[in-house]
């Protein structure tokens, strides 16, 4: 199986708040650094990429944010319009449909349609031969996917849709999307965790669901934001003893060191738990002691992650 970044399409998933967006952008930078024309897709209009690269909001446009790196925020309504135009080929017919009240109620009512057209757009971006007129192809498409609960629903949409619409063009297109995202040669998935109880549990759960329910192969699990082991247990003992004799800033500093020691330790336990709980190789990424993560930090992280 090809290496993660040698696939065409990579989904970055995980529990909320674990740094999926940061990792998606870092992987994007890593791909771009290998000379691949890369695009990072957001699906919940977070505009993280534009913030990091200090660009205006990208919206539903492919915008170059760094060398070889593009970003897009996929809006389901825009995706649906684009899809309809590609299907119907006649703009007037598309507009007739989109303007119709009934069509809009229907589109809003059909469960999973938003997710389906979003994945459709992702698929379109990942085609060597783009469907959208005059659009250039990408070597690598990275998706900052929704958090766990929504993520599984999101990625299984094509499969579910193919079941609901048993025949007709939507059925065959949903099947094609499902085939594409479950093809281990072209599409990869990574799960991001942080060294805490719930994210570790959810990662194991997510790996199982992605494999069994969606039929994807998980390529890699990242343990993000792992504290460094700055102090040994001997040193922690010395710090404990020095705590009582200290005062003021020295006391606060020793206390901070002991906290770091305890956190680093409990995080190592979580790292072990994660390794036990998943069947995919785990790659650890260090916690970055910076108030905010800017391009510089993400470039550094892209080296460690890629």
């Amino acid at each position: 199986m090809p290496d993660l970044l040698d696939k065409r399409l990579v989904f970055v998933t995980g529990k909320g708040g674990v740094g999926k967006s940061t990792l998606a952008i870092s992987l994007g930078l890593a791909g771009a650094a290998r000379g691949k024309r890369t695009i990072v897709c957001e699906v919940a209009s977070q505009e993280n990429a534009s913030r990091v690269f200090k660009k205006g909001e990208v919206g539903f446009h492919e915008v170059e944010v760094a060398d070889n790196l593009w970003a897009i925020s996929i809006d389901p309504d825009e995706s649906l319009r684009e899809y309809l135009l590609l299907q119907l080929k006649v703009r007037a017919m598309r507009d007739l449909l989109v303007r119709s009240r009934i069509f809009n109620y229907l589109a809003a009512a059909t469960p999973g349609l938003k997710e389906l057209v979003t994945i459709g757009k992702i698929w379109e971006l990942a085609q060597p031969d783009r469907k959208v007129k005059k659009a250039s192809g990408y070597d690598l498409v990275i998706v900052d996917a929704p958090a766990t609960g929504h993520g599984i629903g999101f990625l299984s949409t094509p499969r579910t849709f193919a079941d609901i619409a048993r025949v007709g063009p939507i059925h065959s297109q949903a099947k094609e999307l499902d085939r594409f995202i479950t093809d281990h040669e072209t599409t990869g998935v990574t799960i991001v965790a942080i060294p805490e109880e719930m994210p570790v549990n959810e990662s194991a759960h997510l790996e199982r669901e992605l494999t069994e329910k969606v039929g994807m192969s998980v390529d890699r699990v990242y343990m993000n934001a792992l504290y460094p082991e700055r102090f040994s247990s001997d040193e922690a003992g010395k710090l404990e003893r020095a705590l009582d004799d200290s005062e003021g800033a020295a006391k606060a500093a020793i206390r901070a060191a002991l906290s770091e020691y305890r956190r680093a330790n409990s995080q190592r336990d979580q790292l072990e738990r994660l390794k036990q709980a998943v069947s995919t190789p785990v790659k650890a990424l260090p916690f970055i002691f910076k108030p905010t993560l800017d391009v510089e930090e993400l470039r550094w992280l892209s080296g460690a992650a890629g």
Partner: protein
Amino acid sequence: MADVAEILEGRGIAICAGSGGVGKTTTSAALAAGLAARGQKVAVLTIDPAKRLADSLGLKELENEPRQVDPSLFEGAGVEMRGELWAMMLDAKATFDDLVQKHAPDAETRDRILQNQIYRQISNALAGSQEYMAMEKLFEIHQEGRYDFLVLDTPPSRNALDFLDAPKRLTQFIEGRSMQVFMKPTGLATKVVGRGSSMMFGVLKRLTGLDLLTDLSEFFQAFSGMVEGFTERAKRVSELLSDPATTFLVVCGPQGEPIEEAVYFHRKLVEAKLPVGGVIVNRVHYETEADLEGGEVEDELGGLLEDELARRVAENFADYQALAQRDARNIDHLARELNAKRVIRVPYLDEDVHDLEGLLEINRYLFATEEQREALAASGAG
């Protein structure tokens, strides 16, 4: 700044809202435990607690109905339990099924709905149905009137609107005018929208195939008798949410992005005229009052530790202080945006919270005054 007891005084419902991964479940459980220990009969409705947390509350299998947490567990942890703590885990699908059961005019309609493909998708996956079912369950338990206080932990919505729009979106869907269209597909062209739509239907059929349209049509027909009941109930759920006895607590983390989300969420709650009690910021790195430069800290440590260790302790301290300063800046920004409305800071504890003792630890911060919190944090209780 105030303590949480002040915010909850005289209320009957607290709803913990916020984006994923900020500690909502833990906060909800800690709030409920604190209120129960102080003498109320409290139920906490959680979404998906850490297994170890559920285990440590003695709730091996959390069900879709509240179960009582054994009071002796609290006494074992050195806390007097003067009230009762009940806990349940929301099962959105089961709640939806119950709702259908309750509103269906007869058994045949009920079964038709429960087995419909579209229904099965909606009750599982329609964006917002988990959010709505959380509120629905809250309403149901509130109706029964068996508790003094209810704490609702909300699903990790991608954004505030997912949560707040849920009742509206769901009723819109169920009562959707599209339904009427489906019920009389033949009379459609002339009656409802004129010529355009029959062509539209043709186009649609070409895109979707007939099956999908048939399933939708069947679903809407089966649901048609229940629309009124559903709509009425959704209205009452909305009323409960905006009742003055309800309070929303926004939960967030101290980093830039979660803070911005909390500001946004707070604004949306205010715009929706929902009662907001305050914001709880979890995992805060407290600033140390002593503001010595790194070099000086190292000097002070010099007498206590060998040089090389002292250097590393000072370095770690500088890193920690940088995070503490960031957190303080972000929380100032939050307090300004909220017009100094109540912000409660819970420190970043040394251990991940997943047991009763951890909850009680958090509790001490939630129910402390701001001065007590500073003192607790400075004494290294965290």
